[in-house]
């Protein structure tokens, strides 16, 4: 499968997904670590893709959403941003709402 098609499938089949360096348990970058922690604090399940373990995605994700850096967080198939935006949304209480809503919608369908 084409890598862009693969990314599309990942972000569309998971209500919440983070593309990060490392894993939530063993993050390999401070920015990925902080973004994953914010998602964990939302107390909902989320999917993750370790871009360091998937060179093809590492190379191509930036052009998928025209976003040059990692981590990237997608909710309902749409990029919401990287670490800065995710943390800002979390501090505003918005992230938890968005994540919870996405998970509930996914369960309902």
């Amino acid at each position, binding site marked *: 499968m084409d890598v862009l098609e693969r990314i599309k499938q990942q972000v569309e089949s998971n209500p919440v997904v983070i593309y990060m360096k490392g894993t939530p348990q063993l993050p*390999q970058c*401070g920015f990925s670590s902080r973004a994953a922690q914010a998602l964990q604090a939302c107390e909902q399940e989320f999917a993750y893709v370790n871009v360091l373990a998937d060179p093809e995605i590492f190379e191509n994700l930036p052009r998928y959403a025209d976003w*040059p850096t990692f981590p990237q967080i997608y909710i309902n198939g749409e990029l919401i941003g990287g670490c*800065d935006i995710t943390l800002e949304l979390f501090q505003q209480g918005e992230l938890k709402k968005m994540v919870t809503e996405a998970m509930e919608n996914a369960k309902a369908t």
Partner: protein
Amino acid sequence: MSERIDMIRKKLTEAFSPEQLDIIDESHLHAGHPGARSGGGHFVATIVSTAFAGKNMLVRHRMVYDALGDAMNTDIHALSIKALTPDELNN
């Protein structure tokens, strides 16, 4: 080190004519971590410009990435962005 900051400052100034622009090089904080091997720096940029008015955060960050262009792939490994309008700064 400061050459990179000058380059970032020049690109952002040209793109946004900012009322305020602060760029901090935090590369030393990240030396040696796995992601830093490529040699790109870690920077924090605070940009205050009317160019961001009416635009959401995602769009603002994209504007900044676009303004920096290829430097995002070469000199900059990570960039933390605070993009505000003058009104937001004062409130």
